[in-house]
């Protein structure tokens, strides 16, 4: 089963490498990883760049003990401030996808209406191709991509998942 872990880390060089290395050497199966600057109300942050959020999707391969170990091992790292497993909590999950699709003139109108339905944008228009840009839950993106396959997906890139907890509670 896939778990979404949101971590708050000190934004210093090497943190990403340390966390990634931890997952690699203990054999945890990382499906996606996203990291960028973040804000957290609990901590003073005069520069606005003190903290990063690393959001990691990991597969526990049916063993719940793995998640307990992952959380504990992450907390051991001095630069990791907070670790939360948000697999079951009330979150807003998002990923972004860019999909380069074969789009001959005849098919273009259909493609555009598909995009409208999924509230996706067109980020590039060429003679033979378009690039569809979509933001949404992982399931929504999976559905869109599978429909786009019918047209011919030439290239596809997706970001890692990011999440925030709904309401006033901290992520």
């Amino acid at each position, binding site marked *: 089963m896939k778990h979404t872990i949101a971590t708050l880390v000190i934004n210093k060089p*090497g943190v990403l*490498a340390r966390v990634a*290395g931890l997952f690699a*050497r203990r054999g945890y199966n990382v499906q996606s990883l996203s990291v960028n600057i973040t804000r957290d109300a609990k901590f003073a942050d005069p520069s606005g760049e003190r903290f990063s959020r690393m959001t990691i999707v990991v597969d526990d391969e049916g063993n719940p003990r793995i998640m307990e*170990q992952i959380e504990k091992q992450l907390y*051991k790292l001095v630069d990791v401030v907070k670790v939360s497993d948000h697999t079951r909590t009330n979150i807003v999950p998002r990923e972004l996808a860019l999909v380069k699709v074969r789009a001959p003139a005849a098919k273009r109108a259909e493609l555009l209406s598909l995009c409208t339905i999924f509230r996706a944008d067109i980020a590039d228009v060429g003679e033979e191709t378009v690039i569809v840009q979509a933001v949404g839950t992982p399931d929504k993106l999976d559905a869109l991509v599978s429909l786009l396959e019918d047209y011919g997906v030439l290239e596809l890139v997706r970001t890692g998942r990011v999440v925030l907890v709904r309401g006033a509670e901290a992520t």
Partner: protein
Amino acid sequence: MTQLRGSEAVLRVLTEQGVEVVFGIPGGQIIPIYDSLWNYRELRHVLCRHEQGAALAAEGYARASGKVGVCFATSGPGATNLVTGIANAMMDSIPVVAITGQVRTAAIGRDSFQEADVTGITLPITKHSRLVRDPHELIDTLREAFYVAATGRPGPVLVDIPSDVSLSTIRWHEPGTLDLPGYRPIREGNMRTVKRAAEVIRAAKRPILYVGGGAVGANAADEVRELARRLNAYVVNTLLGKGAYPETDRQSLGMPGMHGTYYANHALHHCDLMIVLGARFDDRVTGDLTGFAPEAKVVHVDADRAEINKNREATVPVVGDVKTVLQQLLPLLEPRRRGPWEDELDACREAHPLAYTHPPAEQGIAPQYIVEQLFEVTRGEAVVSTDVGQHQMWAAQHYKCSRPRQFLSSGGLGAMGYGFPAAIGAQIACPDQPVFDIAGDGSIQMNIQELATACIERLPVKVLIFNNGWLGMVRQWQELLYEERYSGTSLVGNPDFVKVSEAYGGTGRRVERAEDVREALEWSLTITDRPCFLDFRVAPEANVFPMIKAGGRFDDIWESDPRTAAQSG
């Protein structure tokens, strides 16, 4: 506000943190720090002959003294030579701060001369590390390093300092509060869990104390002794826990595990409660986890949350400093009487003692006999380091420790080459105590160059070389499990170790007969100003027993050679 050079600030922070000795070897990128060291009287610098020796000496110093050990190395090859020592400190949770020179900040990442990404290389084997790019962060980064190394579950911290940072001018400032939002070591146990632990302990009929390196690290020997006394409980100690409870006491069962005593293993296997104090269910102790201590509940006290429920589920987990938690727990415990369980353990110990036979004189000396003689001659009070292999296990079995920080051994990493530099560090930490290193002929050659360090520093470390001409532990496995295919384990080409010692300015003696062992040991104690190598001709066929194979269970224990047992049985 004093202005000073970065390298001077480094030394001032070390002094502020209570450091008196550093072990190291200079090189290009760390010259600024060594330059500041030139007239700096508050620090003693011990020049080693390999950075691995420096790192392991810092580690041995830390183990013996309880203080943070410090080592210096230059960039590139100096830093990479520290790796084994750092990994060793990580595996055994020893507080060490390693300071490495690094190429100038502008040269980083360009495959510069003697550049190595030491923070990258040591990421998985350091508790924490920093590359200091901004000179104004240098002082606080070092203070953080000491705090992280010494608190919680101790471990190695590396600080990598580019040479231009060392040469910058910065402002000194006094220590303030450290701001580490991601690091909050827990000292006190949660009282709810401590009370629950007391309940579970009260209900136990067959309790055992399982004491590890964490009890030594927390300086909890008094509390461990009080707990054992109040519960009349028997104690097993791991390799790293030796001395946390006196092994000479009736309630001590010695070391459990792969080469532990039969009765210590019996105790764990049949107990109904393990009170685990600063130990981590290492595979050398447990063997196959599914067959380990099948009937036991577990009260697990440890400073590291991640160790709890990692290998064995804890009935009552208590996260905290072992000493503090025991102080919280003891008032909640009523005295318990000795019972049939303790009688059973006494009987087991009588029926299955550690045993060995003396080989015929022409084969050599029984190694176990040498350790026993050492124990008697030193009255069990010396500081003893070991190297890694069969001799390490015989030392663990037969040198009974009565106090912690007396026995220094590479447990988790099992790094050959450990014993001699660690003994050097320990002798500097304990200048008035006799320090012995129990080594093999293979192991001693891995850091033999530190003879120079020992001679220059006038350290009377006594190295007992258990010379059998083999990489003994591997040979044992090949003999018992690989049909005697002794691939790569015959150590032809050993030098005359006494001559090597003398060539550096030390002394030594070769001992070929059992009758000469005691006198040689006594003679070594009279040497007070230089290292002493005793080259013992040890019987090559000797094997370490008891033995439970890796991944094995207590039921499969071999108390003696299984092949002869099979023949006679």
